[in-house]
C-alpha cells in the first residue's frame, strides 16, 4: 500500500481577502452603543474571509493531518484506539450539548444521570469508592490527586509529608503535577527488570513521604508483579499509593487499582475510553479514591437519592475546584457511551486483544531491535535501535512515508533510542504484520536515504532547531 499525504501551499487564513459573508441576526445602531469613551476599541484585525473560503482552507488543512481514522497510530502511553462514531452522535444531541453549566439540577436530570452512571462505572472498573469527573485532562487528574494528598495530610496534621516518590520510568506529567501542588519530587531508579527497585523504594520512603506515584503496567509495558509489597512499603510509612491511569487499557476487567491497594487513581477517558483527542485535546481525567479520601474530592459530585440526581457541594474537606464547571461533559458523555456499548464482555475483550496485539507485534520485531527487560508485555512495549546503526528518529520518519504513524520516540528516557509502541485493540493482524515488516525494512535502508525522509508527507523533515531559535509564534 502506497501513501501520499495531500500537499497544499496553504496560505494563512488572513491572506484570503474574500470578505466575511456570515450573517449575525439582529439590527443595531453601531453609533449609539454607549461604550464608554475610555474603553472604545480603535483597531481590530481579524481575518476577513468568505464562508466558502474558510471551509476550504480548513478542509485542505485537515487533509494535511493524520488521524486514527486514517490508520494505525501506535503512540505508546497514548492509547490511540478507534473513536466510535455512535459516541459522537450522542454527544451532539442538542438537549445535552446546548445545556448551560449553571442550569438548576431539576432541569438537567438527564445530564446528571449520565455523569452519575459514569461515576458508578468507573468505581466498578477500578474497585475504588468515590469518583470526581471534574479534571479536564490526565495531568489535571494527577494534580487533583496531589491536592487531595496534600489536604489529607494537612487534615491528619502531618505537614512534614512533603515528598512524592516517582520512578524514573514515569510519565513527565507525574513529577510536574506533584511539583505544582507544592511537593518535592524524589526520583528512584528502576531495577534491572525495568520495574520498581524495592530496595531503592525502601531507602527512599520515610515519615516525609506523602505518596508514591506509579503506573501499572509501567511505561515499558511491564506489570509490576511486586505491587503487593510496594503497597505494603508505602502504607507501612503512612503514605498514599497513586495510580496513573494512562496505561489502564492493559488491565480493564483483569485486575484493578483498588485490588492492588492503590488509594488514588486517575483515568484518561481520551485513552482507555476512546474519546477523540482532537489534535491534543480535549481530554478528561476523572479521579477515583478510597473511602478515607472521599470527602476530599473537588466539588460538586453527582449523587442520586433514589428519585432524583443532584449536585452535592457538601464534602467536608473538599479541595475546592480545579476548573469552572463539573468537567468536560461532552467527553464524559462519549466515555459513558463507550462503556455502555462495550459492556463487561467487550471491555474485557478489548484489554485482552490490546495485550495480544502488543505481544504479537513485539515477537515479530524481537531480535532485530533490542527489547529490554521481561518478554511478556501488557498494552505497550519499548524497542530500541541501540543494537543497530539507526536512530529512532530516522525509523520514525521512515514509517511516516508508508501512512503509518510512528511510535512515541525517545520515551521512556531510561532506554536509549527508544520507541514506545502501543498498537491497541483497534488493529487487525494484517496491519500488525505490515507494521512489523516496515519496522524491519527500515533497518535495511541506508542512513543517507533515511535522512531525507519523509517524502510522501505534506512537508519534508522539519527544522525544529530553527523553530526554537527564530521563535516565530504568530503572523
Amino acid at each position, binding site marked *: 500500500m502506497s501513501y501520499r499525504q495531500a500537499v497544499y501551499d496553504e496560505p494563512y487564513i488572513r491572506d484570503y481577502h474574500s470578505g466575511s459573508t*456570515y450573517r449575525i441576526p*439582529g439590527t443595531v445602531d453601531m453609533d449609539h452603543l454607549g461604550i*464608554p469613551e*475610555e*474603553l472604545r*476599541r480603535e483597531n*481590530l484585525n*481579524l*481575518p*476577513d474571509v468568505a464562508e466558502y473560503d474558510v471551509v476550504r482552507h*480548513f*478542509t485542505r*488543512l485537515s487533509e494535511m493531518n*493524520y*488521524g*486514527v481514522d486514517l490508520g494505525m497510530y501506535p503512540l505508546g502511553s497514548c492509547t*490511540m484506539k478507534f473513536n466510535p462514531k*455512535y459516541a459522537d452522535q450522542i454527544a451532539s444531541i*442538542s438537549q*445535552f450539548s446546548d*445545556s448551560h*453549566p449553571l442550569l438548576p439540577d431539576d432541569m438537567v*436530570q*438527564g445530564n446528571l444521570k*449520565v455523569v452519575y452512571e459514569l461515576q458508578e462505572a468507573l468505581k466498578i472498573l477500578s474497585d475504588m469508592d468515590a469518583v470526581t469527573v471534574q479534571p479536564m*485532562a490526565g*495531568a489535571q487528574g494527577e494534580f487533583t490527586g496531589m491536592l487531595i494528598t496534600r489536604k489529607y495530610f494537612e487534615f491528619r496534621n502531618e505537614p512534614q509529608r512533603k515528598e512524592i516518590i516517582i520512578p524514573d520510568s514515569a510519565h513527565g*506529567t507525574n*513529577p*510536574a*503535577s506533584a511539583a505544582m*501542588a507544592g*511537593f518535592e519530587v524524589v526520583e528512584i531508579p528502576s531495577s534491572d527488570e525495568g520495574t520498581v527497585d524495592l530496595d531503592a523504594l525502601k531507602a527512599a520512603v520515610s515519615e516525609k513521604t506523602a505518596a508514591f506515584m506509579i503506573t501499572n503496567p509501567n511505561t515499558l509495558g511491564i506489570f509490576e508483579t511486586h505491587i503487593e509489597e510496594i503497597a505494603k512499603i508505602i502504607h507501612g510509612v503512612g503514605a498514599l499509593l497513586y495510580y496513573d491511569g494512562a496505561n489502564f487499557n492493559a488491565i480493564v476487567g483483569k485486575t*484493578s487499582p483498588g*485490588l*492492588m491497594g492503590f488509594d488514588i487513581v486517575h483515568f484518561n477517558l481520551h485513552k482507555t475510553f476512546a474519546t477523540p483527542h482532537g*489534535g*491534543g485535546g*480535549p481530554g478528561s481525567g476523572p479521579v477515583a479514591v478510597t473511602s478515607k479520601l472521599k470527602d476530599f474530592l473537588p466539588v460538586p459530585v453527582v449523587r442520586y437519592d433514589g428519585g432524583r440526581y443532584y449536585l452535592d457541594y457538601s464534602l467536608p474537606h473538599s479541595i*475546592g475546584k*480545579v*476548573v*469552572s*464547571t463539573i468537567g468536560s*461533559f461532552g467527553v464524559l458523555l462519549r466515555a459513558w457511551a463507550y462503556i455502555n456499548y462495550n*459492556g463487561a*464482555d467487550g471491555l474485557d475483550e478489548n484489554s485482552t486483544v490490546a*495485550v495480544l496485539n502488543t505481544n*504479537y507485534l513485539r515477537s515479530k520485531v524481537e531480535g532485530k531491535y533490542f527489547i529490554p527487560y521481561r518478554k511478556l508485555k501488557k498494552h505497550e512495549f519499548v524497542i530500541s535501535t541501540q543494537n543497530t546503526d539507526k536512530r529512532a528518529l530516522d525509523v520514525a520518519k521512515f514509517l511516516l512515508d508508508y501512512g503509518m*504513524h510512528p511510535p512515541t520516540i525517545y520515551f521512556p528516557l531510561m532506554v536509549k533510542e527508544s520507541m514506545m509502541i502501543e498498537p491497541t485493540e483497534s488493529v487487525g*493482524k494484517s496491519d*500488525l504484520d505490515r507494521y512489523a515488516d516496515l519496522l524491519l525494512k527500515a533497518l535495511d535502508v541506508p542512513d543517507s536515504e533515511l535522512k531525507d525522509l*519523509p517524502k510522501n508527507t505534506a512537508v519534508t523533515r*522539519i527544522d*525544529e532547531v530553527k*523553530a526554537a531559535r*527564530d*521563535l516565530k*509564534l*504568530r503572523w
Partner: protein
Amino acid sequence: MPRNDEVEQMLNSLSMKSRDDLFSEIPTKFRKSVLRLPRSKSEFEVIETAKSIAKTNQWDQYKNFLGMGFYDRVIPSSVDSIISRSEFLTSYTPYQPEVSQGMLQSLFEYQSVMSDLMHMDFSNSSMYDGYSSLGEAVRMAFRENERPRVLIPDNMINTKLQVIESYTEGLNLKFERYKISRDTGEIDLENLKGLVDGNTSAIIVENPNSYGVLDRNVTRVSEIKKDSVLIAYVDPISLGLVKPPGDYGADIAVAEGQQMGIHMNYGGPYLGIFTFRKELVRKSPGRIIGETTDANGKRAFVMTLQTREQHIRRQKATSNICTNQALMALASLTYLSLLGASGLRKVAAVTMEKSRKFTDNIKKVISKDAVPFTGVHFSDVIVKINKSEKDLNAALIKNRIIGGIPLSRLIPDLSDQLKGNYAFSFTEKTPDADIDLLSSILGGI
C-alpha cells in the same frame, strides 16, 4: 481487531495456550473475578438509551437567561462541520509534525488571531478553560517575581477564586481583595493604589467584571501597578468593541473561549485563552507552536519551546499541561475567521443592545434603583429584586423562564451587601419579546 482464527494463530506464535496466559504474571489474588457491568449492546440500543435520557432534561422547554461567563451564542454551522473532520478530531498531540501540518498551522493561526484579538504579543495554543488559565497566570506571575501578594477584585466569583487557590496551593500566596465601587460597579482606584506594594506579585482585573459592568478604570491600573504583573480576565466577545488588554498594559491576558463557536455542553470541553507579553514567553505554560521550514525550505509548523514542558523538564516544568484543548482552539479560530471584525463587532453590539433594552425596561417597571450599578453592562445585568430566591424562581418557572442567579450565591463573602441582587444574561440570540416578558414578570412580583 484480529479474527478469532487469527487470535489462535497469534497465541500459538507466542507459545500460549489461552488468552489467560497473556495475564499470567498478574498475581492470582489481584485478578478481578467478575466485572459487574451490563453486557455489550448494539449501537442502536445505546443511541436510543442516550436519546431517552436526553429527553429527561427539561431546560429546553424554558426561556434561558443564564450567563455569568458561559453563553448561548450563535454557532455557525461551518464550525461544527470543521471540527468534526475526523483528520482533526481523531488526531493526537502533533508529535510527528510532518503528518500534522493541518492541526499545527491551525494552532499557529489560532495563536496569531488570539494575539490580535487580545492585542498581546503571544498566545499559547490553548488551556483547559478560563478559570484554570487564570490560575496558571498567577503561577506565571509568581515565577516572574516570586512575591507573595495577589490583589483580586472583591466581587470575584467564588468558583473562580477556588480554582486560582487550587492552582497556587503550593506557593503560599496571599489573596487580598480591592474594592469595586457599589455605585458604579467599577474599580475603586484609590483603594487599589493603597494596596499595591513591593510584595505585590500580581493584580487581577476583570472586564467586564462579575457585576457584568464594563469597567473604565481597568485602563488606569497600569499607572498604579508599580512593577507587579497585571493580569486581565476578559470577555472575548466584548473585544469586538472594547479596548483589548494589550492596550491598557496587561502583562498576561486570559479568557474563557466557550462563547466563540463552542457549545455550552453543560460544562465542557471549553477553551482557556492564554496570552502574554513576549518577555514572558519562556515562563509561559502550555504548548506553543512555532513557524519554521522543512528540509526543502518550505514553510512548516512544529511544537516549539518544549524545554519548558513536563515531558522534558519534569518537576521543573512551567506547567504540567500535556493535553490541552486543541480542537476547541480550532473551533474558536474557525468562528473568528467566519465572523471577521465586522461580525464580532455586531455580536458584541447586539448583545449590548439586548442588555440595554432589559436595563431600560427594569428602570421603568421596577424603579431606577433596581439596576444598582451605573456602569454600562455587557452581557450580564444585575437587578435588585426584593424577593427571596425561592419566590423569584417560583414566579419565573411558572412562566417557563430560567434565570436570576442570586449574586450572594456567586460571591458569598459579600452576601449581606448583595442580598436581593440577581443576575440575568443576554446574547444576540435573546428575542426582544422574551426580554419584554421577563421585564414585565419582574415588574409584577
